[in-house]
């Protein structure tokens, strides 16, 4: 991303209406409650993921496994049986 002097950047931001691209970023997380209203912290990948992907398997660690149970957070949903087999999430 190009860098501007602070004031020039501010004016550029104002003039162009540029948004802060939060939706395009991947955030690391280390616990529950830090991912905002529509995401959860994946217990194995340790990144913020959409709520409907919180039960994705990650590199062999599936919901219900001992490793999963050990890593899950207080807000990790009850995933039941192993969910999506093919996951794009990567482990930490």
């Amino acid at each position, binding site marked *: *991303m190009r860098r501007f002097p*602070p*004031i020039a*950047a*501010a*004016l550029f*931001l*104002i003039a162009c*209406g540029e*948004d*802060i691209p*939060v939706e395009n*970023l*991947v*955030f*690391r*997380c280390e616990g529950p*409650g*830090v*991912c*905002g*209203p529509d*995401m959860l912290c994946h217990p194995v990948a340790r*990144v*913020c993921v959409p709520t409907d992907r919180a039960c994705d398997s990650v590199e062999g660690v599936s919901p219900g496994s001992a490793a999963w149970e050990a890593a899950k957070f207080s807000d990790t949903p009850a995933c039941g049986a192993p969910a999506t087999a093919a996951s794009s999430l*990567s482990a930490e």
Partner: protein
Amino acid sequence: MTAFAVAAALLPSGGARAASPREELALGVAAYNDFNYDAATRHFDAVLASPLALQEQRCDALMYLGFTQILNDKPAEADRSLDRWASGCPNSTPPKGISPKLRQRLDAAIARRGSPAASAPAADAAPAASSTASPASSSTSMEINLEERPGVFRRYMGTFICAGVTLVSMGAATGLSLTVNSSKSELDNAARDDKGRVTGVTRARALELEDGAKSKATAANIMWGVSGAALAATGVAFFLEHTASKDSGSAALPVRFGAGVAPNAAMFSLHGSF
């Protein structure tokens, strides 16, 4: 550059040479237009005292001397000067665009033409015309005092108000813009790991920054718009008020303002005449 300075620059530099009546008259009018009434009085007196002054120049000097004295709160002397003008300058015509109040004083002097108090002809007008008061005109002092020329702030109230709005809105816009930029910088500069994942701030914090930045950016845009409009209004107000105050002692404000703010809009209106 003021009108006085322009006139002074245009006139030939004469060193120690005494200014001609024409030059004195031009300097007097320039000083009058620049609200420098003491200097204007001196120049008009010099015209009247000069044996080289033409009748037309004496008439103009007397008329402007009367205007100057009216605006300089010397009504008795103004009546005396204008009476001399009215009786000695029947072919002299006042300049266009003078204020109704000055016009009224001129008409009053013309109406008094032929009376003993107004019998001194312009050609004989002495430099001391501005230093003596006529008892006959003292009764009008209270009336003229009511036309006292307002102060700079009152004459340029619209300009000052617009300039103040400009400064305040620009300051607010700048502050908001810097705040927005600070929020953006906090996210841009947040630490990331080797896979590009943000580790310096949480997503919840990033969303807070985004929401705050959006609302502040909107407010900043409004403030920039207001400041731009106010800056333009400052120029217009100065033009209107400067034009109005040059030839009028009126305290009336020639500019009217209106302002309004709605949730998604801001309005600043300016009304005036010239």
